[in-house]
């Protein structure tokens, strides 16, 4: 094994035995995103994702809104009255434009996968997280369980199931690059083995910081964070919440034993209470 931190997930690689492949993921380097939305379009084309509303939001160039059942890549646009780099815009009209292509994080500890009552959500041999559309019964539990608001129910023509990014499972299992990464003209979206991407991201962050991007940080590369690190992580130029991302996400099932203990206490109190009520006679 290399000196890389352990990023094993619950069902990968052990349960796949010989079929396990290196864990694959995305590194989205937002410092070179130009907001062209080629990723959004390529994703829709390849995965035949339905139309998600022709809206004019007025929120900069973002007319997509956010990830959901019918949007698996979402480019965020943020306009700030701040310099892009330290020392820029000292003439008083500092302005910068942040762009970032958001996607399912394919968490090491995936809340959606944990809470799914049917086993429809699985971990693939590539360590990615996929919803099996022939099993999902549309209970919707994964929707509020995801700390990033990635999954949603598709309400088109009685579909009723939950959909999200598959990390192009049909392409990646054949050794191909996912559609969004393939289409990205600036290599803002990079696909590859996760440990390689982490190394590359570390080097890139050093370069970006040295170039004067003061707010630059990696988001989701840390295997000790609340979801055990993301399979799809980011280089951001500001706080995560600026991009609509949670600052410190956790896999909610981390607290599940504690929740069952609280429920056991309450259930015990109810049982004792009922028994006590019967002791006082029937009138």
């Amino acid at each position, binding site marked *: 094994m290399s000196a890389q931190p352990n990023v094993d997930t619950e069902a990968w690689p052990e349960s796949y035995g010989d079929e396990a492949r290196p864990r694959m993921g995305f590194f989205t380097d937002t410092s070179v995103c130009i907001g062209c939305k080629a990723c959004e379009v390529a994703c829709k084309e390849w995965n035949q994702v339905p139309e998600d509303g022709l809206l004019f939001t007025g929120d900069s160039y973002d007319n997509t*809104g956010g990830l959901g059942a019918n949007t698996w890549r979402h480019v965020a646009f943020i306009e700030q009255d701040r310099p892009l780099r330290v020392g820029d815009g000292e003439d008083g009209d500092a302005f910068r434009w942040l762009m970032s292509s958001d996607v399912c994080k394919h968490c090491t500890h995936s809340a959606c996968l944990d809470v799914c009552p049917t086993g429809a959500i699985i971990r693939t041999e590539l360590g990615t997280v996929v919803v099996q559309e022939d099993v999902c019964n*549309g209970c919707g539990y994964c929707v509020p369980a995801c700390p990033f608001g990635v999954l949603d129910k598709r309400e088109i023509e009685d579909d009723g199931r939950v959909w999200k990014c598959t990390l192009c499972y049909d392409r990646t299992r054949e050794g191909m690059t996912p559609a969004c990464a393939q289409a990205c003209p600036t290599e803002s979206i990079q696909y590859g083995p996760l440990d390689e991407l982490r190394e590359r991201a570390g080097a890139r962050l050093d370069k970006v910081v040295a170039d004067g991007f003061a707010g630059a940080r990696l988001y989701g590369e840390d295997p000790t964070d609340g979801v055990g690190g993301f399979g799809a992580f980011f280089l951001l130029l500001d706080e995560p919440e600026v991009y*609509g991302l949670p600052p*410190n996400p956790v896999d909610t099932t981390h607290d599940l034993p504690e929740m069952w203990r609280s429920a056991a206490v309450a259930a015990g109190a109810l049982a004792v209470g009922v028994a006590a009520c019967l002791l006082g006679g029937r009138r």
Partner: protein
Amino acid sequence: MTERPTDGYYGRPIVKPPVWKDEIAWYLFAGGLAGGSSSLGLAARVTGNRALARSATFTAAAALTASPLLLIKDLGRPERFVNMLRVVKPSSPMNVGTWILTVAGTAAGATAACEATDVLPRVRALAQGVAGVLGPALATYTAVLISDTAVPVWHEARTELPLVFASGAAASAGAAAVILTPADSAGPARRMMLAGAVGELAATSVMERRLGELGEPYHTGKAGAFARAAKTATAAGAALGAFAGRRPAMGRLAAGLVFGGAVAERFAVFRAGSQSAEDPRYVVMSQRDRS
């Protein structure tokens, strides 16, 4: 440190609000009513209070007939509801709950069928035992189910929510039994209703206080309206119930208030979840506290 914005990205939600419709709020209530009634039915049977055992048994069976129908109706693919039972998955409270519901529902149905037709007393005793023992689990697992999400007002209340649901279950099951049982056999139901109502008011107020600013949804919008209605009805019902004693008409009026209060409390919790997820401030607030 610079000021971090709390309205995030154009004020859009960070986590997705639950997609569950009102059926699920009704189920949160029905599961509690069924669980409380099953246990009350068993306890009444053991202590020889036939009239009370009968009414609690029928209430449990009715609530457990409605429960799966409500749940299936809310599925995006109702015809695939049996997929819930294709695995046993301890990491999913909904899966665990479906198994509890399936066993408890079958047992409660069998109990009620035997009770109504007055046949197979041993089968009835066994089924009533199973349903009664599973009752508290049925009444509280839903609290685990909703706190096992990224919804701040639910996840951060994970210690108190089971107590809110358990006391609400006692209040509603007690109230239903007060309404349906002859007053001279309804003593235990009256006590259960009063204890449940007081417990519900206490647990709710502890939960809201412990949530602090995250508990704001319980004071605003629809969740706030439901929460106020719940407190008013439950408190009024408890007070009237204590005053009424064994007077049947007044007792039933009190029970109606407590019953309605328990319904409103589940709707308050349900709506608060949506309001909490819709506002990115709460997500950011809860996670900054954590870091």
